[in-house]
């Protein structure tokens, strides 16, 4: 059986991601062991909350090595904080190391607008990729965050959104994807992007 693993280290949006994959009809498993991640066709790293807490929780779960390995060899998607964790380090609460899978760091959004950014904002597609197929320039997706990624390599920046400053909304490099917004809460556009990701994994339907 071929399935998508959703990494379970206590993140709040885990069930929402699971519901969405169920709705789209793709086999998926809540992954609380390294074995489930190793045997998966693709992996999703969800995340809500503060960066250091999430990194601590991931390390405590004993899944970090399996996550790092999976991110190098199969379709891998980080969502919201899960995307931020792909980077080298974050300033949130205290300086904290991330997974280091993408060069760059996480910083507080510098904007005159209200923080956190909570709501629907428009996607600007900078570099189309497999997940943005069928997504139109200006499509709205749902954001909840105060911190943002600063990819060191501009080629990794797939989509941005404008929140008084340019905010990276999506990053992509080969098999590795990260969405700052919540595709699982972004209506039809989000469903379409998750379907694109699921197709890449060739998980069973």
């Amino acid at each position, binding site marked *: 059986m071929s399935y998508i693993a959703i990494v379970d280290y206590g993140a*709040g949006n885990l*069930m*929402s991601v699971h*519901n*969405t994959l*169920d*709705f789209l009809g793709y086999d998926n498993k809540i992954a609380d062991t390294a074995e489930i991640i190793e045997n998966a066709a693709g992996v999703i790293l969800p995340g*809500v*909350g503060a960066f250091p807490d999430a990194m601590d929780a991931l390390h405590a779960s004993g899944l970090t090595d399996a996550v790092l390995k999976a991110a190098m060899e199969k379709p891998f998607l980080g969502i919201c904080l899960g995307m931020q964790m792909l980077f080298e380090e974050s300033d949130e609460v205290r300086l904290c190391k991330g997974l280091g899978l993408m060069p760059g760091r996480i910083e507080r959004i510098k904007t005159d*607008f*209200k923080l*956190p*950014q*909570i*709501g*629907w*904002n*428009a996607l600007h597609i900078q570099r189309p990729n497999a997940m943005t197929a069928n997504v139109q320039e200006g499509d*709205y997706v*749902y954001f*909840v965050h105060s911190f943002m990624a600063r990819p060191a390599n501009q080629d990794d920046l797939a989509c941005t*959104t*404008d*929140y008084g400053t340019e905010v990276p909304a999506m990053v992509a490099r080969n098999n590795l994807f990260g969405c700052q917004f919540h595709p*699982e*809460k*972004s*209506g039809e556009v*989000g*469903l379409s992007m998750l379907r694109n990701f699921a197709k890449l994994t060739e998980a069973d339907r």
Partner: protein
Amino acid sequence: MMLAKRIIPCLDVKDGRVVKGVNFVGLRDAGDPVELAKFYSQQGADEIVFLDITATSDNRDTIADVVRRTCREVFVPVTVGGGIRTVDDFRDVLRAGADKISINSSAVKNPELVNAAAKKYGSQCVVVAIDGRHTGKTPSGFEVYVAGGRTPTGIDAIAWAKEVYERGAGEILLTSMDKDGTKSGFDLEMTKQVANLVGIPVIASGGCGTLEHFSKVFEVTGCDAALAASLFHYGELTVDEVKQHLKQKNIPVRI
């Protein structure tokens, strides 16, 4: 560029069933909150609010089940209000899949609940609902009512909005008890005062009856979202009609 202004239908739920449900064409069961949430989501609702008006205290399992079933089919944010009194109550409903929890009387009774919930789950999921009425008995003239808008508190509604913002609320759902049910338009004055004062999104509620009421509240007050219940339930306007109207008025919406 700014965030899209949100249009939010609110469903009153009692014992797991929708109150005031109307049978729209194509709905299998107009009393099923899941069916209605799905229906509105397909119309373009940016968020769904469930207001649990069950009188008994053992209602949380029921509303949690409604949320759980909704989140299997509806992929926009879901907010739940009604009967949430403790930080533990937050946990149960969030685990069921809700994105935000709205508290009202319980925040007035115990303002520390706002701080505690924001600290534990993050400000983004703490919505404080304020029912305000113009009584002239407070400095701003607007007074907070609790218990479904029946009981005056003597608290200034504008000052209360500022206080909950400072305590860590992530959003304010501001309902005008004067306007609620009148279809004469939102309370622009109260909404404007709150929106100008707090650094978090404000949802205007109570009084909308026409398309122009929606564009007006966004043009005049600086609020971020507008909520309506019976207007949508009775099919007088659809979410899509409201959003098309806003788009024509150059107000950013998700279509």
